[in-house]
């Protein structure tokens, strides 16, 4: 499909900026495993401190890359399926806010004034530019959402009897979750943290800030994940050469995500004081509810792939798997998506471990947690983003992909790396290895009296896997930036693979309407979060002044 010059430019910027920053993010990923395993026993390397690097790694990889990609991919999807371009001014304004906000936050982190990690838990205080920059990035991502709602309503008016495409439902569900959950973090940042970091307000309620953060923090992971789910449903069966087993299964999955993504955030706070056990166990159980759409997806996609393989002449109960187009350069996207799905089997199961209430006592804040989330956000999310970014780059710029063989093997290499890395971290977590800790200085420094030999093997596995992941990242950069430098050889277009459904599907009104689902979503959020927020307000009576990460004495206003 032809695309206008202005939209094309904006989309290319939104794809290029985060991948460029990702070079810094991935460099610091490698540095983390080197520090942690005790190979270097220093506070900083090349002028960048461990915790500053960890902040860059988290903010760039988990917030900047994912948000930019979700917006760019959302534009492409909405444009492709509704056959209408998004509003030019809104698209431009959104891109501008996101780029400026990212620049502001990155400057604060690089200047060493915001080493507070991507969760920025107060009372650790960052420079106000960090908070304002992050808020601008988020608000920038709201603008297209409002625009897409208009596009969807117009499309609906013109096609009253047609089922809304799964990709459109997925995109709108995703940004509805994003919009609602970011309201809480916007309140935390703009009303609580910014005045406090500027010194206008002396003290704030830390438990309230944490509760608001996790209202956002877990829904955030579904915001990362749903673009991959859209690709699994609408593209993967086509790429494999088959059809989607059930489109309505996809719609059900997305609507369950809509109602259950937010009211489960307290499962990150099982170890927190001031929140009642009743709230905690309720949200723990609801988390199992949000595993259901992933079960549905696993079945539907596996069935679609088996169908595709049988069309290619496969036989046997399991051997059909080998008929899938694993190493084909022309459908390289298949490799990115299938590897993501394989990693997500382990990512999903370890996520259930984390969410299992008292079982969480074993793993909370140990390296089990990064072990888990590199199998999710570092698995299906990251691979889908990489694959789709280079796919869209090639289409929008009209350039052929540079070094297509490298591009095809990247997801396989990455998957091997992540599996080793996560196995190491999760093993370490089970024997108490803490996350977010420069262990090279103490626990893994043989000359320190705090040396702990238990964690040597686990952190070495982390190092080995991390090294492989870094190599895969480098190969990807060669392919991505190499493509940027090529000459244009075709007309710029957006053409997404479209999977037809296997069975004839009638339009189910309940699965083609947002209203009832939005009402349920609001009700469940109110029932689960009203007591959590009331607990945080009522059981906390000591507020906290700001602290710099370097100084045990609070920052006092001059």
């Amino acid at each position, binding site marked *: 499909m032809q695309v206008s010059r202005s939209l094309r430019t904006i989309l290319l910027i939104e794809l290029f900026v985060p991948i460029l920053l990702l070079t810094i993010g991935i460099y610091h990923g490698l540095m983390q495993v080197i520090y942690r395993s005790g190979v270097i026993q220093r*506070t900083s390397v090349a002028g960048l401190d461990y*915790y500053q690097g*960890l902040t860059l790694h988290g903010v760039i990889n988990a917030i900047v890359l994912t948000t930019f990609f979700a917006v760019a991919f959302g534009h492409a999807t909405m444009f492709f399926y509704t056959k209408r371009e998004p509003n030019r001014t809104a698209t431009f304004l959104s891109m501008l806010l996101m780029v400026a906000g990212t620049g502001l936050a990155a400057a604060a982190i690089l200047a060493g004034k915001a*080493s507070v*990690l991507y969760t920025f838990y107060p*009372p*650790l205080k960052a420079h106000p530019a960090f908070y304002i920059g992050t808020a601008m990035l988020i608000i920038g991502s709201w603008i297209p959402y409002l625009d897409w709602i208009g596009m969807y309503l117009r499309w609906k008016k013109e096609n009253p009897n047609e089922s809304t495409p799964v990709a459109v439902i997925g995109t709108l569900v995703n940004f509805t979750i994003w919009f609602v959950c970011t309201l809480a973090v916007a309140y935390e940042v703009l009303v609580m943290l910014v005045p406090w970091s500027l010194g206008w307000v002396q003290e704030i309620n*830390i*438990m309230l800030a*944490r509760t608001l953060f996790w209202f956002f923090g877990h829904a955030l992971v579904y915001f990362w994940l749903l673009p991959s789910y859209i690709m699994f449903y609408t593209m993967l069966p086509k790429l494999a050469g088959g059809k989607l087993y*059930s489109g309505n299964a996809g719609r059900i999955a997305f609507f369950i995500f809509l109602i259950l993504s937010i009211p489960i955030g307290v499962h990150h*706070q099982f*170890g*927190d*004081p*001031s*929140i*009642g*056990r009743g709230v*905690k*166990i309720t949200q*723990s*159980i609801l988390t*199992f509810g949000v*595993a259901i759409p992933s*079960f*549905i997806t696993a*079945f539907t996609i596996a069935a679609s792939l088996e169908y595709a393989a049988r069309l290619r002449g496969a036989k046997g109960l399991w051997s059909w798997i080998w008929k899938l187009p694993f190493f084909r350069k022309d459908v390289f996207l298949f490799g990115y998506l299938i590897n993501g799905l394989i990693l997500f089997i382990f990512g999903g199961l370890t996520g*259930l471990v984390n969410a*299992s*209430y*008292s*079982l969480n*006592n*074993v*793993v*909370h*804040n140990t390296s089990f947690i990064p072990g888990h989330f590199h199998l999710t956000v570092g698995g299906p999310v990251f691979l889908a983003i990489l694959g789709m970014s280079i796919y869209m780059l090639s289409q929008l710029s009209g350039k052929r992909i540079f070094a297509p063989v490298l591009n095809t093997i990247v997801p396989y290499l990455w998957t091997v790396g992540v599996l080793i890395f996560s196995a190491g971290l999760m093993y370490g977590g089970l024997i*108490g290895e*803490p*996350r*977010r*800790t420069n*262990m090279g200085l*103490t*626990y893994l420094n043989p000359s320190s009296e*705090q040396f702990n030999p238990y964690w040597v093997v686990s952190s070495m596995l982390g190092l080995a896997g991390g090294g492989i992941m870094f190599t895969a990242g480098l190969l990807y950069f060669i392919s991505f930036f190499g493509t940027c430098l090529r000459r244009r050889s075709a007309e710029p277009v957006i053409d997404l693979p479209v999977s037809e459904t296997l069975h004839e599907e009638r339009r189910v009104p309940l699965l083609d309407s947002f209203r009832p689902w939005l009402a349920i979503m609001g009700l469940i959020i109110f029932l689960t979060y009203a007591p959590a927020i009331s*607990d945080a307000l009522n*059981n*906390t*009576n*000591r*507020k*906290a002044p700001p*602290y*710099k*990460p370097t*100084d*045990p004495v*609070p920052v006092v206003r001059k």
Partner: protein
Amino acid sequence: MLDRYERNVIITALTVSALFIFSIFYALGAKRQDVTECLPYNKTYETARVEQIDGRTYQIFYVARMWNFEPAISYIPVGSEVDLFVTSLDVVHGFNVFDKNVNLMAVPGGVSKTTVKFTEPGVYKIVCHEFCGTGHQNMEAEIIVNYPRK
């Protein structure tokens, strides 16, 4: 109607989820595995101390600050049941007792409480597992079980 395979998968998914949820309640009831209690905060939690309630019961009140725990070392006889209370006087800290499945957050303005029984002698290391500033990796404490009586 629903496809036969789809129906079977939905039933399987629901059964597996129900099994998981049952396990949570089983651990809660039969194994007394629970998360931190929710206590209203007051000033007495800001004083670090070890208190002996009776021959077999102790209470340790931990206070976390950048970058140490108080009491840094506590001595407890084998077989004691210990209530642990943890709060913080500055930023958010973590509190993980090695080998004991005790995993709490130390948050200013709140107090986390759990109960743990020490049946084996040994040195139980406590590490801070929440980033709390540049000295985070130094932050440790110990519970020594079965220290000979003085």
